[in-house]
């Protein structure tokens, strides 16, 4: 969206993708001579930027980041750092006086227009839903919650709207950004639904502008429509059967990693009147009558439908927002040889534009492979009981020989696997206590360097607000055992660790969280 806005006004820019804090530092050093204005997207809000990057006095940073909490220095600095957030965004930042002791007389407190001052000192207790988390003393975890709010894409779309330069393409990108947050479980369902309602207003505004009965729009223009569609991942680009087998929701519902589960699925399909032969075909080749009635037929499974948007341009190209999210994510983290992260980023960016359909379709293929790999790994982990309860959390380690383990050396894929695994585990275990534990997962990252990547996710719950405490917990555990860790990712709940330090790190984590 930002690129499109720059194009409109002929502004020159350089785009630099960064994978972590080190990358950010190097990129900044390379470019700081030539540029004065820096826009940071999805990074930089929760660290003291000025201290980390040491910029010149006339560089100005615009930060659009949904990671919380925001570092206080970033909020209170009014010259060099500008935060792009919504007016009613509750940053819960303690008031200026409580933190900074000013030497000079004037006490400028113009943070008022940027943040809603909660005036809670950081020692104050916060309320949670989970019983097990409530007992944690807040002094340690006072500001460790990762509560992501409005996605950057929506922020930029609102900006474009204010400038009246918003187009359907930008609206679509904003929707994809929102869906990405939901697919990767970064926001709660309530927040997703509220944001969908906001987007729905924009969609109606755009569609009413152009479509009357007499003046129909050319078929090549992009049409965005609101859909109350099935939660089966990628089902329109796959066969229905495959999609049911590989979507987290249906897989857990039927427990498809057991033989019994597969039989239940067959019975279910038979009950619904969907012939097996049809269902195993590519979706577009299924009978029209089945396709049209599909949503009504599958309705009785609880929560199978989700509100989302679909885009159509040309006769052949119909995509749901979640399709594009999976495709872009798969492209971003593809593990082909000889592809640097920057290349992957550019490819993923290309796949979002309408003119690069080949890219998008290859992304969808990669996403299919990734989903199949995830489901197989989940099945094998559950069947071989690889998930161990370590007391305050569940733990799972993927050995090096596991098939497709290379796919899981990337943070997003591993987080997705983690989420599905936890859901499946909760559905399959009978131990009531285990159902409310969070999950920590480790997988080999780089065999030559001997590092593993560790990810932690909060416990599975309907009403959780997705606060993730593992960032701080990982940091403390690493300090106390002096393990060699790398906290490079912008998402603090993902770290790299040396393989040899794994055991002692784990032990420290257990003692910390008990």
């Amino acid at each position: 969206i930002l690129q499109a806005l720059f194009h409109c006004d002929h502004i020159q820019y350089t785009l630099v993708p960064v994978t972590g804090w080190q990358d950010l530092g190097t990129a900044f050093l390379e470019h700081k001579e030539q540029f004065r204005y820096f826009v940071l997207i999805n990074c930089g809000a929760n660290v003291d930027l000025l201290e980390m990057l040491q910029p010149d006095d006339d560089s100005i940073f615009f930060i659009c980041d949904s990671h919380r909490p925001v570092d206080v220095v970033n909020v209170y600095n009014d010259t060099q750092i500008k935060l792009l957030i919504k007016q009613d965004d509750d940053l819960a930042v303690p008031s200026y006086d409580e933190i900074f002791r000013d030497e000079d007389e004037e006490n400028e407190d113009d943070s008022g227009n940027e943040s809603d001052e909660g005036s809670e000192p950081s020692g104050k207790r916060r309320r949670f839903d989970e019983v097990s988390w409530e007992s944690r003393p807040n002094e340690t975890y006072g500001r460790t919650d990762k509560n992501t709010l409005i996605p950057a894409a929506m922020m930029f779309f609102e900006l474009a709207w204010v400038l009246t330069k918003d187009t359907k393409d930008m609206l679509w990108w904003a929707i994809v950004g929102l869906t990405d947050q939901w697919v990767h479980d970064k926001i709660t369902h309530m927040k997703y639904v509220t944001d969908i309602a906001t987007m729905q207003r924009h969609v109606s505004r755009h569609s009413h502008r152009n479509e009357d009965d007499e003046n129909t729009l050319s078929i090549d223009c992009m049409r965005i429509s609101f859909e109350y569609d099935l939660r089966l991942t990628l089902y329109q680009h796959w066969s229905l059967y495959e999609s049911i087998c590989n979507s987290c929701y249906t897989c857990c519902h039927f427990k498809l990693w057991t033989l019994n589960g597969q039989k239940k699925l067959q019975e279910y399909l038979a009950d619904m009147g969907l012939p097996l032969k049809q269902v195993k075909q590519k979706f577009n080749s299924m009978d029209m009558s089945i396709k049209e009635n599909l949503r009504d037929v599958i309705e009785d499974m609880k929560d199978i439908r989700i509100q989302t948007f679909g885009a159509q341009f040309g006769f052949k190209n119909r995509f749901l927002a979640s399709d594009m999210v999976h495709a872009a994510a798969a492209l971003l983290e593809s593990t082909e040889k000889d592809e640097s992260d920057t290349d992957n980023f550019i490819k993923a960016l290309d796949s979002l534009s309408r003119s690069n359909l080949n890219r998008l379709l290859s992304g969808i293929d990669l996403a299919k492979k990734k989903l199949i790999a995830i489901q197989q790994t989940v099945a094998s982990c559950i069947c071989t009981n690889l998930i161990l309860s370590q007391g305050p959390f569940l733990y799972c380690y993927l050995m090096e020989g596991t098939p497709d383990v290379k796919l899981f050396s990337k943070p997003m894929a591993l987080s997705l696997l983690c989420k599905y695994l936890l859901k499946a585990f909760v559905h399959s275990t009978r131990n009531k206590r285990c159902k409310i534990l969070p999950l920590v997962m480790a997988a080999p990252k780089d065999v030559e360097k001997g590092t593993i990547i560790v990810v932690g996710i909060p416990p599975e719950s309907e009403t959780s607000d997705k606060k993730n405490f593992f960032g701080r917990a990982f940091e403390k555990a690493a300090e106390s055992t002096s393990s060699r860790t790398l906290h490079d990712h912008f998402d603090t709940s993902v770290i790299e660790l040396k393989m040899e330090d794994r055991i002692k790190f784990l032990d420290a984590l257990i003692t910390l969280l008990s």
Partner: protein
Amino acid sequence: MDPSEVEFLAEKELVKIIPNFSLDKIYLIGGDLGPFNPGLPVDVPLWLALNFKQRQKCRIIPPDWMDVEKLEEIRELEKREEAFTPVPSPYYMELTKLLLNHASDNIPKADEIRTLVKDIWDTRIAKLRLSADSFISQQEAHAKLDNLTLMEINTIREFLLDSLNCMYKLRSNLQPGSSGRTFTDF
């Protein structure tokens, strides 16, 4: 001439736009372009209109002739007549292509207009080919064709001239007393 050159010339045609920004009168070498006020229609050359549209600074209003019923009438007329009928605009093909490629969301029933204009073009080119064919085979000395547009002329130009050249060479070699038996390479 290259088709892209013809398109370049076509971009000088004026179209109506509704800008969403304001700008004072601008003085260009080719002429003045009136002050731009948001919401008020103004005539600008096509190249400027397309530039503004791509930067989302305006909305383009399709020319009067770009309308389904009018184009249908023209198409029927073209099919009935043997000669060439007057065209809605000397650059109708280029205008249609450019406007439908860049601003199809501002043009109602864009798909039908595209098919209609293509039909008109096909009919005219067919007539052109027929007449060129009869011109060459009957070895006429001159012909007069009304109502042709530059794009159509450009399409046939190279072929017609080359074939007439070849015919001339063939004829001049047949006549006795011409420069020996020199068989030139065609």
